[in-house]
């Protein structure tokens, strides 16, 4: 790697340095826009006691769900974990910790983490179990709770196209949590479908500027569909 060439050539290299007990922030919503191959690499590495920050935990046998099979996950920070039988089983058995976080708060925590904002107030969750132990403060007659930001040792991100500088664009709603995750990793790894020539991406339409990206790899994706709905 030299200058601004962020491209690495193997998934081993992409996830090099991941260690037991680390925090990994993952992009994706449901199975849409998830870093499939980076997750598979984490499974292959067998790293344990991970804290995973991701809106969901995949499904049984796909996405982040595969990390449950060998009990690699100590704790999940998610807004919705309902699609995963193994998850429920480990959770109810006390083998897995979960920190349920409202979806918008989770997105904002990642953004804040990347943006050097250590904490922010939100009305979301005031008066609910989410507010337990958190500071409450009134602004303009309304109560808000203080939420702290999230950063990770690694962020794993799924993009569509990128140039070697690490400038990334996302496709359709596969964007979701990926741009915020990309800002919040000490080491941010992005896998994409295509690496384009320098200058091909319009500077004004880059979703994730290369400054946030440490490693970039091109992969192939299954893109499993969770709820296939069609009109006739």
């Amino acid at each position: 790697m030299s200058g601004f060439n962020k491209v690495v050539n193997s998934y081993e290299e992409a996830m090099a340095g991941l260690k037991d007990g680390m925090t990994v922030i993952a992009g994706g919503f449901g199975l849409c826009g998830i870093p499939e191959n980076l997750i598979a690499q984490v499974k292959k590495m067998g790293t344990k006691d991970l804290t995973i920050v991701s809106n969901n935990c995949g499904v049984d046998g796909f996405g982040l769900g595969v990390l449950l099979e060998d009990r690699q996950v100590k704790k999940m920070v998610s807004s919705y974990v309902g699609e995963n039988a193994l998850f429920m089983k480990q959770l109810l058995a006390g083998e897995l910790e979960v920190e349920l976080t409202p979806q918008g708060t989770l997105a904002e925590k990642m953004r804040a983490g990347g943006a050097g904002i250590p904490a922010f107030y939100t009305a979301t969750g005031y008066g609910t179990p989410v507010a337990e132990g958190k500071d409450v403060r009134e602004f303009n007659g309304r109560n808000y709770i203080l939420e702290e930001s999230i950063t990770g040792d690694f962020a794993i991100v799924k993009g569509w196209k990128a140039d070697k500088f690490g400038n990334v664009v996302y496709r359709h709603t596969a964007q979701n949590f990926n741009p915020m995750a990309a800002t919040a990793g000490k080491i941010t790894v992005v896998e994409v479908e295509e690496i384009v020539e320098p200058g091909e991406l319009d500077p004004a339409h880059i979703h994730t500027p290369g400054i946030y990206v440490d490693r970039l790899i091109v992969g192939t994706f299954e893109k499993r569909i969770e709820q296939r709905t069609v009109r006739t």
Partner: protein
Amino acid sequence: MALTREQIAIRVARELQDGFYVNLGIGIPTLVANYVPEGMEVMLQSENGLLGMGQFPTEDEIDADMINAGKQTVTTVTGASIFSSAESFAMIRGGHVDLTVLGAFEVDTSGNIASYMIPGKLIKGMGGAMDLVAGADNIIVTMTHASKHGESKLLTKCSLPLTGAGCIKKVLTDLAYIEIEDGAFILKERAPGVSVEEIVSKTEGKMIVPDHVPEMVF
């Protein structure tokens, strides 16, 4: 007769206004999109990062990268925009969405709502619901008035963990349209053929019954 799912959707659709940005929750709320009044345009927001959600795709149009908050494959309408989850919830939390429709397990006379968790039984998570109820000014909760066993879901105090505190003002059940004001349910409309007495008997929280409670017309 209790309202059908479709009738609930039709009644909610009457709250739409031309030019509204609307977030529809999973289940009955989703059906509201089918009953937008003629000549009126609304734009649907999906909290995973889509404003201007269209209908389901044809087999040919299906795209794994284009889904809604229910993880269903969808399409976009002309004028749509697609953005990150942070931007999506900036819209929601910032009060830019004109109407939010979502389901619930319970609501109470303080405007509290419980919709995401049954301790020891259902631990799926709140998804975007806590942000939606905290961020929106204009929320309609759709739910059945009572459980299958006849237990009221309109309570003095929610028994389940809350999704939001003091944020619900409008509830449409299969029996009635109700507004919450000053610590009471105000009975505004009743389902066709459903008596005020039945509604009151199935409402555990304090209910105020005006002299005239019009019947909904479909």
